[in-house]
């Protein structure tokens, strides 16, 4: 079928000139040389060259993967452990590489703590089952405390040094130190959404220079967009663009992208309830959504959107060492099917 010129990624000025000259379909341009086209359409030779290049490159995109190849790729890639074994288990090994994961929760539920924990855990050497990677943390709220990062790094290094049993692991421990952990976290402080958008645009270049990066954190994506943007359609548009770029980064560079989000109140017929902020359209963007909350006196994490995981809720705690399993977990006992702490959660699951 004939492809209209307007579907090509051309600058508006050049496109207009081509249309004025009577060209409408890509097939009409095929026989032209850049010089002829420049004369015919009244564009510069440089522009004509670009048009013909756009024409040639279209259709020559990446060949499709079969689902089988994708499966093999998925099996090879490792996930980032969270050091909360129950959450890792439910996530089949941790925060997956190549996906966009959102962590939402009310203030003080541990979103930033989980992000920092992941930034440390991504660096665990491969012989310990980690990824031995680096992390980029984009801080939009100023909430990233290096002191906490230091605590968590100390705990992780201590944990691994206790585990080290063979020669390979002892060699790896020599380079896995608190200092190296801090060195391998790249912190970017973004003060508003413009800075955040600009930084995300630059991210592919940064990742090409540092192929070791396996984790990108945006903490939080909600704050700059809720603070400075009053025009909802404009906000949605920017957010959708940001989401697509983050997903492209995650897939293209094999990194795990973790973003955090606030909660907001939605008034409905059944009274008000807390829902993740930034609206429904943003809700489509993350591949996996985690909700952190207080369930009675304990902290709980729930998976509530994922194409491949069971929805589940687990308890965790935050200690001075970081993000950990809750100490005792009565709902792991087979006789009690329903987690006690959050009965309201599974009430609808009752037969």
């Amino acid at each position, binding site marked *: *079928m004939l492809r209209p010129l307007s579907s090509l990624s051309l600058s508006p000025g050049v496109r207009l000139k081509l249309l004025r000259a*009577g060209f*409408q379909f890509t097939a009409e341009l095929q026989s032209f040389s850049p010089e002829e086209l420049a004369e015919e359409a009244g564009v510069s030779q440089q522009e004509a060259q670009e048009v013909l290049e756009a024409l040639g490159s279209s259709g020559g995109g990446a060949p499709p993967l079969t689902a089988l190849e994708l499966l093999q790729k*998925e099996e090879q890639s490792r996930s980032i452990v969270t050091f909360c074994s129950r959450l890792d288990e439910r996530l089949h090994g941790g925060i997956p590489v190549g996906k966009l994961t959102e962590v939402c929760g009310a203030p003080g539920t541990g979103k930033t703590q989980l992000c920092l924990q992941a930034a440390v855990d991504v660096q665990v050497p491969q012989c310990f089952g980690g990824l031995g990677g680096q992390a980029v943390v984009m801080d939009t709220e100023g909430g990233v405390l290096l002191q906490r990062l230091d605590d968590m790094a100390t705990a992780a290094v201590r944990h691994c040094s206790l585990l080290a049993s063979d020669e390979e692991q002892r060699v790896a421990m020599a380079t896995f130190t608190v200092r190296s952990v801090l060195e391998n976290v790249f912190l970017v402080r973004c003060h508003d959404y413009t800075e955040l958008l600009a930084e995300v645009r630059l991210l592919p270049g940064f990742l090409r220079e540092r192929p070791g990066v396996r984790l990108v954190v945006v903490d939080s994506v909600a704050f700059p967009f809720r603070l400075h943007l009053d025009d909802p359609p404009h906000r949605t548009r920017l957010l*959708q663009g940001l989401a697509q770029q983050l997903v492209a980064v995650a897939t293209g560079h094999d990194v795990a992208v973790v973003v955090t989000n606030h909660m907001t109140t939605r008034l409905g017929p059944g009274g008000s309830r807390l829902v993740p902020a930034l609206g429904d359209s943003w809700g489509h963007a993350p591949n996996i959504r985690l909700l952190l909350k207080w369930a009675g006196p304990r902290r709980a994490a729930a998976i509530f959107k994922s194409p491949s995981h*069971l929805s*589940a809720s687990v308890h965790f705690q935050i200690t001075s060492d970081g993000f950990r399993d809750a100490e005792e977990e009565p709902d792991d006992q087979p006789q009690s099917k329903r987690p006690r702490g959050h009965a309201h959660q*599974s009430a609808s699951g009752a037969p």
Partner: protein
Amino acid sequence: MVLLREGMCPGLDRELLRGLRGADIRTVEGLVSSDIEELAQKCSVSYKALFAIRRVLLAQHAAFPVSGADLYEELLSSTAILSTGNPSLDKLLDSGVYTGEITELSGGPGSGKSQVCFGLAVNISHHLKQSVIYIDTTGGMTASRLLQMLQTETSNTQEQMEALQRIHVFRLFDVHALLDCLYDLCGGGLQRASVGGGSVKAVVVDSVSAVISPLLGGKQNEGMSLMIQVAAVLKTMAKDFSVAAVVTNHVTRSSGGEVQPALGASWSHIPRTRVLLQPAPSARPFSCCSLRSATLIKSSRQPCDIREDFDLQWWSRGEEGPSGKRKLDETHDESSLVL
């Protein structure tokens, strides 16, 4: 319209072309819609010659009428109805997704759109032994979930692997890449994907709104134009290659708080069949419930606004227990799969 070129039809030579250019006529459209008599005087060519050229051009560019009976015959031989694998959804869709048209699944986050697409892809590749093109624009495509669905269908590893090989996945994240891919599929990509397996029966775009909505809502209307182009190429592809085009769409809230598919009124004319997926009314927000309700909001075959409840667990049900109802009760208590 098409540019006028030398040798397009008898009588259209270089000299005449130059004359027409002088009268600022460059395209077929221009020539056909201008006043021939006036033009003949302006370019000093014979009225007769111009008239003949116009007739030939019109004949070349006109569509050809086909009798309804012939079309119906062709339709019967080329249309296939592809089951989604889920009986409730099939009932809603009048036994499945039809080739030759666009079917849209819309719903909020986690409403099961991708799961239905996965189920459809698995059903086509495993049961019908045909190929599927899956265009993933959100990074949500997870092959391990496909494998999981296949494992409930067959325990034969060889068959599972063969079925997975018939699903071709494109991962694209912007609208130009999507258009490049779709035009390439029309220009031979579909045939290439059919090599070594069944022919391509379905093209799934999950999701179409993820790439289009970043362009909408601004002052420029470029986004609108690109959206219509995506629609046009999908429609042409569905018809010409008799494949089923399945797209997923986000939802927005109207001012009244009602949920409706996104992308606005212009897009609403594009899909032939539209289905809205929602959590079943009994389910609470954020609960671990896999029950969903599907509402038919546009269809040319079935009465609209009919609703069917279904369970996302259906695609990962056990081997035994063909009764979906019983299975449903069993899975009720356990943690369930969400999208």
